[in-house]
């Protein structure tokens, strides 16, 4: 109990993670956004300019290190384009959720490890000058090895999902690009005809 309290006070642990995770997991724009309406995404605090017809990408998220994307919903979005946009939104949400949790867990376990090692050595979390005490790379190596092996299965699952999502989205992008190209050609032909 005391240990966790000390961690929270000292390291600024990951108590912020829980609040953030809930708010940022719906990033990417609401799927039910009215077409043509000014885009906004919950919790991201940014709206692209109204005249813009492209997606916007933001700075890396504090927890997941992934860059959130606000998707553009065109006024005449075809079903295929909608599928693509929703697939990308879903992928973004999944990735954000996974990495935010994973990185938070890493940070928290790292703090706990440092704390326990320092305690074993009889040192405090902060030294006389108030600087946070750290362990050198060789001492941390045990933690890195342990963390990697503990999360191996989780990573395997994520890898499979990521590859599947990546291929699906890229394939959909290809289909959308092809559809748009054909549409443009048809429009051109019609105009030339007229």
């Amino acid at each position: 109990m005391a240990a966790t309290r000390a961690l929270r006070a000292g390291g600024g642990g990951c108590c912020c993670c829980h609040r953030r995770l809930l708010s940022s997991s719906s990033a990417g724009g609401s799927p039910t956004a009215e077409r043509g309406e000014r885009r906004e995404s919950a919790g991201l605090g940014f709206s692209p300019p109204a005249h813009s017809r492209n997606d916007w990408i933001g700075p890396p998220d504090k927890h997941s290190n992934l860059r959130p994307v606000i998707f553009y919903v065109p006024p005449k979005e075809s079903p295929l384009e909608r599928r693509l946009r929703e697939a990308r939104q879903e992928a973004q949400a999944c990735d954000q959720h996974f990495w935010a949790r994973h990185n938070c867990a890493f940070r928290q376990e790292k703090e706990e490890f440092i704390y326990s090692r320092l305690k074993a050595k009889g040192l405090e979390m902060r030294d006389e000058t108030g600087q946070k005490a750290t362990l050198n790379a060789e001492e941390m190596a045990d933690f890195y090895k342990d963390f990697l092996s503990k999360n191996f299965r989780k990573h395997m699952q994520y890898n499979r999902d990521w590859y599947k999502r990546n291929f699906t989205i890229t394939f959909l992008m290809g289909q959308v690009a092809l559809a748009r190209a054909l549409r443009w050609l048809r429009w051109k032909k019609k105009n030339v005809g007229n």
Partner: protein
Amino acid sequence: GLFVWHLKNTGIRQIPCQFVHLCRVANDRLITFQYFNFLKRMYVTQYNKDLSQRAKPKSDSVASPFRELQQLDQEKKVIHKIRPISPVHQPLSETSSRNELREIKSAAETEDSGPPVRAESKEDRQWKEMKLRLDDLPGILARLSKIKLTALVVSTASAGFAMAPVPFDLTCFLLASLGTGLASCAANSINQFFEVPFDSNMNRTKNRPLVRGQISPLLAVCFAASCGVPGIALLTLGVNPLTGALGAFNIFLYTCCYTPMKRMSIANTWVGAVVGAIPPVMGWTAATGSLDAGALLLGGILYSWQFPHFNALSWGLREDYSRGGYCMMSVTHPGLCRRVALRHCLALIGLSTVAPVLDITTWTFPVISLPINLYISYLGFRFYRDADRSSSRKLFFCSLWHLPMLLLVMFTCKKSLLEKEDKGDLLGGNHGRAMEITLP
């Protein structure tokens, strides 16, 4: 002109206040210095009657894995339209729509201290439109294809070509180099396409084009296809089918074996070493048309070199690898990591001695190359014994100059064709006679 200057001035004058404020809040981050550096590089350009502020792109530095500072996510290229009304000037006098109020409220709730309006505009500036600009494309594609690594790969292939015991054919050399370069671009692009979320989470790779959304995954795949297909076709039809097959196999090995294996097993390092060893073999087969002992020896030298190079590099990246889920020896089997590095440093000495035995070089080669091979072995031994950051850095940086120097020395000690004919060597003799017959 004056209008522009005034805006620029006002822009910069405000900013230091914001950043100084942020600095008091931030801990251990060299925000001031880096942001001021960033500001110095901004200049105003007029392009197509649009006034836009454009930051001069930072030259891509060689990936320095040992950077102690936390790299801030500065955009390398920032293109803004100078809005007539700066949001910072008139935060509240703007007719606030529900959205604006909500934004200000949410910004106020954030942990960033300081007036919410200032934080909002700084954050806003970091949002980029995902629109591909044609003049950015060459830079983006260069980074996507890891152009510097590609250049290194092409030079090892050229070394293989140069070491082949045949008369030098310039056309074949150029075609082989171009084909290898295109194949390498394709492989590197697919590698980045597969690794976007992982690259985002590692300091060394977080500024790659796909991570930053500068190019879409579809375009990356199209670029890879448009490099890979002509590259392999060039090698197969313009050089010879063996080289083409090796090129195609190498792309497959790198993208479909090495890249996924990085997250599954430490054996990825050995696969990666083979990937690095194949280009000089390709150079050799491009020149001679056959896979003989000399090709395998050159491949062997590159194979062995990969270990001290990569193992030393990976020693400083253990935290990122662990968090990112990469299975590397330096994390899971640190003792093995150092043993293998040392083992292969010593193997380089052995392989250099075999070169004259196979009639690729004269006996001066093992003698001249001994000092540099001994030096890298010494650093390898220090890395094995000390297992710390400084010894790993020394070994890594040594490997960077060791390889070009070794290849250069090898080339200067290459056994000339004339020497071989004099000694009545079968290979050299045959070539000589064959040449006499075919030339009109």
